[in-house]
């Protein structure tokens, strides 16, 4: 298969804030490969290193060791981000812009020609069902609408790889369903989607493969069916893999 996202022995350490405090190891030699056209779920408990991995992939933080690349280009090069879309968790976009203006701004950063940018803006606003609110200031949007604006900005350059950091976090069931539908539609279009989530049911529904990390280490990677194996659900498999021990009640 053709890997478009790859990390090799990725290690990230954060220096301690206090004098003599030992560095905190966020990632310990993470090896990951995501192939073109698949929906890849990135799972792990809080503090496992999911967001740190995404931050390295997007060039926000420098790895202490190892390497990471997108489409074969080192992630430290801004050009590596030309063909990706990214939706961060809980972002509040510029309140003084309308959705249309926000998307026009981002399309300029991708150097899209004006006519093509307008076509993309129309298409993504229709996709996320914000066409009727396109001329309203973002500060008047509900939380769900803001999340959908986020999805629209992630899609403005028609990316080959979409990275979503807990895309359904804080959304109501209807909002979650819409986001899931959009991911499904992108998958049908042959796009690669890499997303982290705590919603295991959702991951089970849309993902081709998943990786589970805990304490900065890759614990399991493979097809959802293979990881679930003989267990009742992905949730059960997840708890087993991360080593969760239920406390017995007296």
């Amino acid at each position, binding site marked *: 298969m053709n890997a478009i996202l790859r990390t090799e022995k990725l290690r990230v350490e954060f220096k301690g804030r206090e004098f003599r405090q030992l560095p905190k190891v966020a990632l310990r030699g993470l090896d990951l490969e995501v192939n073109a056209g698949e929906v890849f779920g990135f799972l792990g408990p809080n503090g496992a290193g999911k*967001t*740190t991995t995404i*931050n390295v992939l*997007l*060039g*926000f*933080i420098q790895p202490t060791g190892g390497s990471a690349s997108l489409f074969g280009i080192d992630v430290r090069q*801004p*050009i590596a*981000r*030309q063909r*990706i879309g*990214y*939706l*961060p968790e*809980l*972002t*509040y*976009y*510029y309140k*003084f*812009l309308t959705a249309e*203006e926000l998307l026009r*701004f*981002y399309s*300029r*950063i*991708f*150097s899209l020609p004006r006519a093509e940018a307008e076509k993309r803006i129309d298409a993504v606003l229709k996709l996320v069902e914000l066409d009727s609110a396109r001329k309203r200031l973002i500060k008047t949007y509900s939380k769900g609408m803001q999340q959908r604006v*986020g999805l629209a*900005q*992630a899609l403005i*350059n028609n990316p080959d790889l979409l*990275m979503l950091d807990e895309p359904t976090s804080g959304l109501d069931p209807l909002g979650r369903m819409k986001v899931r539908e959009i991911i499904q539609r992108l998958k049908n279009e042959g796009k690669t989607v890499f997303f982290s989530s705590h919603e295991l049911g959702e991951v089970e529904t849309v993902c081709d493969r998943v990786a589970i990390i805990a304490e900065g280490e890759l614990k399991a990677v493979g097809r959802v069916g293979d990881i679930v194996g003989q267990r009742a659900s992905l949730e059960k498999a997840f708890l087993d893999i991360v080593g969760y021990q239920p406390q017995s009640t007296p």
Partner: protein
Amino acid sequence: MNNIFAVAGVVIKELYRRKDFYVLFILTIVICLVMASVNIFNDSQIIRYLKELCLLLIWISSLVIAITTTARQIPAEREQRTLLPLLAKPLSRTQLIFGKFLGCWLACGLVLVCFYAFFGALAASREHTWPLLNYFQAAFLHWVMLGVVIAMTLLGSLVFAAPSSNSTICLVIVLAILCVGRYLDLVALSLAEPGRSIISGIYYTFPHLEVPFGMRNLIVHDWPLIEWKFVALDALYLLAYAAAFLVAACLVFRRKAVN
């Protein structure tokens, strides 16, 4: 350059959609019009006082707008988390810093056009003259001087955690430079070593913003134009300082973790 202009465009939109500028502009107009309606001591040259007051308000307003607008740019991007989707695009941190600088500087240029147009109209209503070249010289050097202030504030926004502390520190530094900066060498001469060397070092290191500030006298007292080569030299001197602050801001920002 396309990315820098795109970022600058958003900063300019922010300025004209926020109320800061309108409040200060209307306040300046109201104060000046009230003062213009009063004739103290039947002084025939009262227009000079009015021009002096109007220019002082313009200077205060422009500094407040420049510093507060710039100080919140990067911290607001961090707080609202818009920095993440922005830097996840093919936009380098240097382009972001330059875009923010250009946006704030151009926005302040537009603010100055409005303020000086009002000043010109107010002065013309009494003096019936339009010394446009004098106004241009004063406004141009004022704008270039704001470039230094904006670059310095941008650097401060990467060093200090809160926009309010950065704004206060920058405002105090700029006011100190404008009010007492030119006298520091005299102070140094009256001191013993090592105070003399330290104060002299500060005097020769910090940017001297006095020339644009002193240009007020040119239009208050109807003095003749300054030679253009001196205007160009002072502009180059100020731009060199703005560039130095911008380079420092880029170096600081490159080392900062964004998450």
